[in-house]
C-alpha cells in the first residue's frame, strides 16, 4: 500500500489506488453485510495471515502456531473484560487489549525459544504442535474458556455496536491492517529486519559475522506473535465471542490456506488471500454443483482443500505470484521500451521461486 508506492509500476499503482479507494469508501459503496462479513473478516484474517507471511518471507520460518498465539491474545482479552463466561474481570477494554497482545508476545517469546533452534520443516512441525496444544489447553481449562466459549465480550466505545453499524469496526480493522503492513515494511528496513533477512538467506554466514541466530529467530517469532495478537483481538471484536472450537486445527489450516493462496512470500498476499477466502466462503455455496455427497454447498472444506491443492501445485507464489507473472507478460506485450520495467520488482521480497530449496551457499 503506501510504503513503496513511488517505486512501483503504473499497473500496480492503478490497482492499489482503486483498491484503496474502494476500501476507504466501502461502507458507502457496499451493503452492511458485505462490509462486515466479507471485508472486515478478510481484514482481520489478513492480519493473522500477515503474521505468518512476515515470518516466512523475512525470516524464512513457516510457522503454524500463529492461530494458537492469536487465540492466546483473544482469550486473554476476552477474559479480562466484562463477558459471559470466562473470568469476567471487567477491565477497561483498551487495557485488556494491551494485556492480550502483551501475553501473546510473551508466550511467543517462550514458543520462539522452544522452536527457534529448529529450522525448516522441523520448525513447522514444532510450531504446529505448539499451536494445537493451545487449542487443547483452552478446551480443557473451562475456567478460561467458559462452557462453549466466552460470549458477549465488552467492546470499546470506539468500535460501537457492530450489529447496528458495522462501518466503525470496519475502519478500526482497516486502520489496524494498514498499520500492521506499514510496521512490517518498516521493521524489514531496520537493522533487526536486515539481520532477519540475512538469517533467512544464509544463517551460517550470519553466525560467522557474530549474530546470535537463535536469539534473532526467537525475537522475530515474538514479533510475529504480537502481530498475531492484533488479529486475535480483532477476531474477538468481530465475533463478539471466542471459543475453543474457533481456534482448532481447522482455523490454523484456514490461515495457512489464506497465506498460501495469497502468496507465502509476499506480504500483500495476506490480504489478497483473505479477501479471496472470504468471498469463496460466502458465495461458493451458491454456485457449487451438488455432486452426491462429495461436493456441494455443505462441502466448503472440500472445495477450499481443492483450491489450496491446485494453488500449491500450479503456482507456489499464490495469487500474487500469478499477478506478477501476468503483469510481466502484459508489460512485455506492450513493447519493452520502458526503461524501469526490468528492475521494478527486484527490491526486497525474495520472489525467486518460492517453495524451492533456498541457496545453500557456504
Amino acid at each position, binding site marked *: 500500500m503506501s510504503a513503496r508506492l513511488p517505486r512501483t509500476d503504473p499497473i500496480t499503482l492503478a490497482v492499489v489506488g482503486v483498491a484503496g479507494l474502494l476500501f476507504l469508501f466501502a461502507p458507502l459503496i457496499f451493503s452492511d453485510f458485505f462490509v462486515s462479513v466479507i471485508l472486515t473478516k478478510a481484514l482481520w484474517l489478513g492480519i493473522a495471515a500477515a503474521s505468518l507471511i512476515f515470518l516466512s518471507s523475512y525470516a*524464512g520460518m*513457516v510457522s503454524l502456531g500463529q492461530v494458537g498465539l492469536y487465540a492466546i491474545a483473544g482469550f486473554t482479552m476476552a477474559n479480562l473484560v466484562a463477558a459471559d463466561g470466562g473470568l469476567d474481570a471487567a477491565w477497561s477494554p483498551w487495557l485488556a487489549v494491551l494485556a492480550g497482545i502483551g501475553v501473546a508476545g510473551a508466550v511467543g517469546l517462550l514458543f520462539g525459544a*522452544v*522452536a527457534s*533452534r*529448529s*529450522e*525448516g*520443516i*522441523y520448525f*513447522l*512441525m*514444532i510450531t*504446529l*504442535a*505448539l499451536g*494445537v*496444544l493451545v487449542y*487443547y*489447553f483452552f478446551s*480443557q*481449562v*473451562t475456567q478460561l474458556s467458559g462452557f462453549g466459549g466466552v460470549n458477549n465480550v465488552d467492546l470499546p466505545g470506539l468500535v460501537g455496536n457492530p450489529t447496528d453499524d458495522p462501518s466503525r469496526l470496519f475502519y478500526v480493522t482497516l486502520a489496524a491492517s494498514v498499520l500492521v503492513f506499514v510496521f512490517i515494511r518498516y521493521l524489514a528496513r531496520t537493522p533487526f529486519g536486515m539481520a532477519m533477512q540475512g538469517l*533467512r*538467506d544464509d*544463517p*551460517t554466514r550470519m*553466525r560467522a559475522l557474530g549474530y546470535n*541466530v*537463535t536469539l534473532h529467530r526467537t525475537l522475530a517469532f515474538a514479533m510475529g506473535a504480537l502481530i498475531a495478537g492484533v488479529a486475535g483481538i480483532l477476531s474477538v471484536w468481530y465475533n463478539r465471542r471466542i471459543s475453543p472450537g474457533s481456534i*482448532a*486445527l481447522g482455523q490454523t*489450516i484456514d490461515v*495457512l*490456506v489464506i497465506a*498460501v493462496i495469497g502468496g507465502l512470500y509476499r506480504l500483500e498476499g495476506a490480504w489478497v488471500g483473505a479477501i479471496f477466502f472470504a468471498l469463496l466462503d460466502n458465495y461458493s455455496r451458491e454456485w457449487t454443483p451438488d455432486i452426491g*455427497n*462429495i461436493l456441494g454447498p*455443505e*462441502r*466448503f*472444506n*472440500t472445495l*477450499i*482443500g*481443492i483450491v*489450496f*491443492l491446485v494453488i*500449491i*501445485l500450479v503456482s*507456489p507464489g499464490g495469487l500474487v505470484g500469478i499477478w506478477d507473472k501476468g503483469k510481466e507478460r502484459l508489460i512485455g506485450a506492450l513493447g519493452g521500451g520502458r526503461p524501469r520495467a526490468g528492475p521494478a520488482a527486484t527490491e526486497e521480497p*525474495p520472489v525467486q521461486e*518460492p*517453495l*524451492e*530449496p*533456498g*541457496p*545453500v551457499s*557456504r
Partner: protein
Amino acid sequence: MRLPLRRGSAASSEVPTAEILAGYRTLPRVIGGAAILLAVGWILAKGLGDLRQFWTVSLNGITLAALYFVVASGFTLIFGLMRIVNMAHGSLYLLGGYLAFEMQKGWFEKETEGLNLSLSSPAGGASEYDLIGWLVPILLAAFIIGIVGLLIQQVFLRWNQGQDLRQALITIAISVILADQMLAHFGGIAKDIKTPADWPESVTIFGVQYGFFRLVIVTGAALVIGIGLWWLIKRTRFGLIVRAGVDDREMVSALGINIPIVFGAAFFLGAMLAGIGGGLGGTMIALEPGEDASFLLSSLIVVIIGGMGSLGGAAIGALLLGLVDAYADVYLVFGDTDLTNYSILLTFLLLVVVLAVKPLGLFGRPA
C-alpha cells in the same frame, strides 16, 4: 528459505547444530534434569500412596503409548527415508478406522433371529463378531490405506522430492479434503469397532483388573510391529537400503538401487501402519471427527521428542507421551486443588524440556 534439503546441505546443518548446542549446553540441561527429578519424585510420592491405582494409571499410559507408537512409527518411517512430513497421517489413521468399521458392520454382522440375540448379548440388539469379523476388516482396511498412501505419494509427492515445505502443504490440503469427505460419509457421531465376542473383558495383572483388549491386543500389536520394523530395518536388504537412503540418498541411487520403488514401498508401509492404528484405535477409543487432528498431534509430538526418523526414538517418545498423559490426568491433584484440566501443560512441558536439551529430539540426527 533455507531448508536442509539437498545432499550438500547436510553438512551445513550439522555445523550450526553443534555450534548452537555448545553455547546453550549447561542451562537447559540443568533445568531439564531438575524437571525430570521433580516429575519422578512427584509420581513416586503419589504412586506409593496407592499402588493399585499406580499400576492402573501406568497401564493406561503404556497402552496409550502402544497405540501412539503404532501410528507414529509409520509417520517417522516416511519422514526418516523421504524427509516428507505427511500431515495427512492423522486422516489416514481415521480413514482406516472408518473403513474397518464399515466392513465389520457390512460383512460380518450376523443375521441372527431376534430372540436368540437378545438373550445372548447384554447390550440388547448389539451384534456379535468372531475373531475373523474383527481381524479381516482391520487388515483389509490397513491394506487399502496403504494403497491410498501409495497413490498420494505417486500422484502428488513423487515429482517434487526434496521440496519438503511444498510436500507438507500438499499433504495438509489432502488432509483437509479427506477430513471433510469423512464427515460427509461417516457423519459426526462417534463409532467404535466391536471386539470379538469370545475375548475376555479383562485380565488380572499385578493384582489389578485391566482391559484385555488394551493390554494384550494393542500392546501386543505394538510389540509385534516394533520388533517387525526393527527386523525389517536392521536385518533385511530393504532395511539396508532404507538406512542408506536416510544417510545419503543420492549415493544410494548412484549405486544403481531403484530408489523410487523403495520410496513407494516405504510410503505404502507407513500409511498401512496408520491404517492399523486406526483399526486398533477405533476399537480401543472411538472414531469421530477430530480424532485425525488428535492423532496427527500425538504423532508429531512423539517424533519431535524421539527424534525424527528414528524408530527407537518413536518408541521412547510414545512411552513418554503416553505416561505423561496418563499420570497428568490422575495425579495432578494437590490437596484440594484439582489441576487435572491443566494436564495438557505437562505435555507442553515435556516438549519444552526435551527440545531445550536436544533440539533434534532424543535420538534425532541432522538431516
